[in-house]
């Protein structure tokens, strides 16, 4: 792989192995960079260090047991991953989800989006080189959301709270005031980040104009989520194929035109504000009622058929393709991971940039390795 470039002095490019154990690869991602001094000439990504065969395992278990694997597939936005899965099962089994369950699902999913984006803010702050401050700010606010989820579901990360048909059990009685508390904390967190990073001169100098990807290229690579919206493509599954109650409330799709790292950061920041708005509206519409359908079979069976359901997870389109041949377990389950598609564009965005930029570009597409490898 070491190539010689024609110049006055004979030089050799250096192969630099980044990962799977590296502070900036966000898990066990590995890439081999061919660097000419500080400039990246070639990037070869390697994935698969976190492959656990979750899709195959789901085929050996019934539909309710599969929920746990969805949590572990996308552990930073487990609610969103669960939602895609249970919606696929519901559509196949033709279950009607009660109103209240839908509103609660929407609140939880948006809160999980907030937690996930906060996690991005913190990790990205470390990537650009602030020593810990944004990370712990983000952690503090995320903790509020996680605490709420723990009160509801009993677990901090692997909730397994959504069920085909509705929810596992109803939320606690103090749910609405607790959500409002969390929103106050998160709003403060967003303001903190605005103060700490958004206007910081060095932050702007590091992120503006770095890792640019055009709208056409982003579509070609099949990107989704904030990464494509930052390039000016208003692609949001919540708007394209509305699910839950997204049509009934008032919210905007956030887009930016620049397509660089800074735009992706701002996109996520504005999306957090938008999520706060969505949750507030949901809280107003939340009514008492049932959380599971009345005629729920003891053993959930689906008729033969296949279905693809997609939802907007924090990192983009999280799709579940489900094939059933009857019975109580899927014949085939395939997860369409947003991170995997977004990661394809990494090479395109980093070749020709500096080593330091390559790592913040990787940070800006916000990958979760367990979702990439599954």
């Amino acid at each position, binding site marked *: 792989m070491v190539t010689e470039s024609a110049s006055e002095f004979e030089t050799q490019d250096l192969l*630099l192995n980044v990962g799977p154990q590296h502070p900036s690869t966000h898990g066990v991602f590995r890439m081999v960079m061919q660097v000419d001094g500080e400039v990246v000439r070639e990037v070869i990504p390697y994935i698969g260090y976190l492959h656990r065969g979750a899709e195959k395992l789901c085929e050996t278990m019934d539909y309710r047991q599969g929920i746990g694997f969805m949590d572990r597939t996308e552990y930073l936005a487990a609610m969103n991953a669960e939602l895609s899965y249970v919606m696929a099962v519901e559509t196949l089994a033709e279950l009607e989800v009660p109103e209240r369950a839908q509103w609660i699902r929407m609140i939880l999913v948006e809160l999980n989006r907030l937690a996930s984006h906060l996690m991005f803010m913190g990790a990205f702050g470390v990537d650009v*080189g602030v020593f810990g401050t944004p990370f712990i700010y983000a952690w503090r606010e995320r903790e509020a959301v996680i605490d709420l989820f723990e009160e509801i579901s009993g677990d901090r990360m692997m909730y397994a709270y959504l069920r085909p048909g509705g929810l596992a059990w109803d939320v606690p009685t103090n749910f609405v005031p607790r959500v409002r508390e969390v929103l106050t904390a998160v709003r403060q967190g967003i303001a903190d980040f605005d103060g700490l990073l958004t206007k910081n001169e060095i932050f702007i100098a590091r992120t503006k104009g770095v890792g640019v990807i055009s709208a056409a290229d982003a579509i*070609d690579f099949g990107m989704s989520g904030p990464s494509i919206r930052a390039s000016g493509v208003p692609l949001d599954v919540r708007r394209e194929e509305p699910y839950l109650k997204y049509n009934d409330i008032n919210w905007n799709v956030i887009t930016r035109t620049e397509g660089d790292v800074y735009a992706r950061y701002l996109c996520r920041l504005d999306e957090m504000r938008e999520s706060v708005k969505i949750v507030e509206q949901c809280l107003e519409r939340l009514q008492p009622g049932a959380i599971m359908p009345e005629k729920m079979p003891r053993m959930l069976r689906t008729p033969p058929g296949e279905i693809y359901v997609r939802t907007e997870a924090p990192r983009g389109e999280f799709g579940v393709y489900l094939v059933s041949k009857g019975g109580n377990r899927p014949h085939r389950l395939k997860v369409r991971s947003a991170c995997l598609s977004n990661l394809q564009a990494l090479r395109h965005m980093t070749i020709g940039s500096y080593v330091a930029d390559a790592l913040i570009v990787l940070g800006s597409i916000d990958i979760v390795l367990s979702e990439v490898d599954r």
Partner: protein
Amino acid sequence: MPEGLFGLNPWLDGLIRLLMIVGLMTITAMGLIYIERKVLGRFHARVGPQRTGPFGLLQSLADALKLIGKEDLRPRNADPWTFEFGPYMVFVPIFLGFVVQPFMAGFSVRVLDLGIMYFVAVSSLSIIGWVMAGWGSDNRYAMIGGMRAAAQAISYELPFVLSLLSVSMLTGTLNINEIVLSQWQVPNIVWQPLAFLIFFIAALAELNRPPFDIPIGESEVVGGPFVEYSGIRWSMFFLGEYASLFIMSVLISALFLGGYEWPFGTQLGIGFQFLLTVVKAAMIIFLIIWVRASVPRLRIDQLMGYAWKILLPLSLLQVLVNGFVLVYDLPRIVLTIAGIGGVILLVSLTERAIRLPRVTHQSSLVTQSEAAS
């Protein structure tokens, strides 16, 4: 002081001075590690060390004991000589810089007439240790880090020295103690605000502190030259880093903030003078830690561009203005006005440099949409 500091024979005197340097600097560096951890903790909305001793005061001691107990590993392919001497090459020059530090009137380890020159010569030596560590480790991260350190040191040495020069032009001496004594009425920062700012920025770069911690960038080169070191050798780098932080802060307070002299004069006694120096240095150290907690890291090309295109011309300008004022015997207020103008220029140039449209790196890959068009 040819007859010796404590009136003893010169050999014993020399030994005592050496022990003074090593003992004092080690304790200071350990104290600074504790302070940095505690202050950074507060910036991070957490409490910092608190379990070891009262208020976690013994944390540095515990760390030191742990590091001494660790195995001193050397990678098999590492160059034994450069690898093992690297830490000493970083450590020794920093401690040598301590010799000319003015803590009290006539009471530094040695009062040298060419004090500033000595300090510049000695302190820039430690970069050799960084490059040795980077090269000798046989690790690509370490090598990139070592090369970055060398490039950074060469770039920032010039504005660093030029802003020192402008101070010594004003006072007409290279002796740090005389510079301190000359500030008995007004500290130099009033006459040389631009030189102070440039010196502060260059000192951050010399110390490899954020936003200039590119050689050790944790999220890029994973600790740079230090990546292969462990145990006592690693702790030498660490100790050296904090010792130089202390030395640089004392130097800034002596050159620009009036050291032990301003505002109370020398008649208050040695203990009070020492306290004044330490308080001023502590303010600078707090400022440096504050910067660390709030700014991201620069990129290597931005760092070099900033030194060569903005800091160097401005520090040359400062030397030129000083020359004019001294040759034509203009009132000193001209220096203040020019200095404030210079600071405004520096800030606006930095602003402009950020707002400039950046050259985006064109990818050499051809995507489908490009191929279709």
